[in-house]
């Protein structure tokens, strides 16, 4: 197990966010993403618990892209991962953040 943490600045707060959004399941090759509003002084914080050790740079790259698509502030994103591929991680995060920001409901 490895714990990773990332922070992004410069995003925008969602006006009236839902209390939380949960997407995905903690199963092999999959992950769950929990998104919650949090008073973080403008920061978007991502906390990851992953079964696949040593993929910090891959996570960094995937999350940079996700933040570019969803520049959010005052958000806490919590992830439990069982070795999902970058494509699956991106998909789940897009689903979760779209729902959080008022897009479609997954």
């Amino acid at each position, binding site marked *: 197990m490895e714990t990773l943490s990332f922070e992004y600045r410069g995003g925008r707060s969602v006006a009236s966010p839902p209390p939380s959004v*949960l997407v995905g399941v903690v199963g092999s090759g999959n992950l769950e993403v929990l998104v919650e509003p949090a008073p973080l002084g403008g920061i978007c914080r991502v906390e990851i618990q992953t079964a696949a050790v040593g993929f910090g740079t891959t996570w960094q790259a995937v999350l940079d892209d996700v933040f570019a698509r969803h520049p959010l502030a005052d958000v806490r994103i*919590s992830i439990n991962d069982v070795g999902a591929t970058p494509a699956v991680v991106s998909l789940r995060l897009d689903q979760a953040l779209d729902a959080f920001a008022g897009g479609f409901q997954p």
Partner: protein
Amino acid sequence: MSSYYEDSARGRLDGLLDPGSLIEIVPPTERMVSPHLRQLDTPAAFDDGIVVGEGRLAGRRVLVAAQEGGFMGGAVGEVHGAKLTGLLERALDTRPDGVLLLVESGGVRLHEANAGLIAVSEVMRAVLAVRAAGIPVIVLDGGTFGCFGGMGIVSRLCDAVVMSEEGRLGLSGPEVIETTMGVEEFDSRDRALVWRTVGGKHRYLLGEAATLVEDDVAAFRAAALALLDQLSDRGPDLSLAALEAEHAVLGSRLERFGGCRDALDIWEKLGVEEPEKLPILDTASFLATVRDRRV
């Protein structure tokens, strides 16, 4: 049609309950995760693989629990089991119209085996306490991982089980039997054998499942509602007379079918004309074919 088999626990609850009526208790944001998995290098889930809450089913007040097979096969650990027990005990206080258990579980979670086993026995006692208090408990079984181990026992403690053909219900899973006793005892890769032994059609014919429905969330909803209304008229019965009647049924099952080695033999004894055709029938034709043939 929305497949119950392929849906997640949360997806099933969404389709089952009146829209927007689910209020989850101890939701994922509480992060009430298993305290035992991390030391075994195993990821935790924010809900420990089970959703519990209050909701409405066609206006009736229900308590619900849904196990997520995608997380460790829906296996019961300390927190998972305590959520289920707590929900059942909540029914003693709030007296809902019924409790719905959307089971999907391989049984006890080995990573916390002792805690899981004890938790299942606490669930068992809680189910019986709820029923003894006159509140019906209904099981829905149609998930990918089926319902085995301690949860297979729990299911048969309840008032009624709703299954789809794809649902499976038993005690020891086919893989466990094969691993321990050998492939000649139970070939777990023989899908047809597995399904006709522990699948919904056979369980329905034996009388272990009260209702057989298509693999459709709406069909499960309709069946649960019908059972709820039926049970609210007569209420659960755990009297000596009821258990003596159950004893007689199980005794005659042993006597009639104890020598059978395959489901096909049992179906033939039940008077089904072409038993080998049952597995390929769709649910509606199956139900029409076996009418008056169930135990």
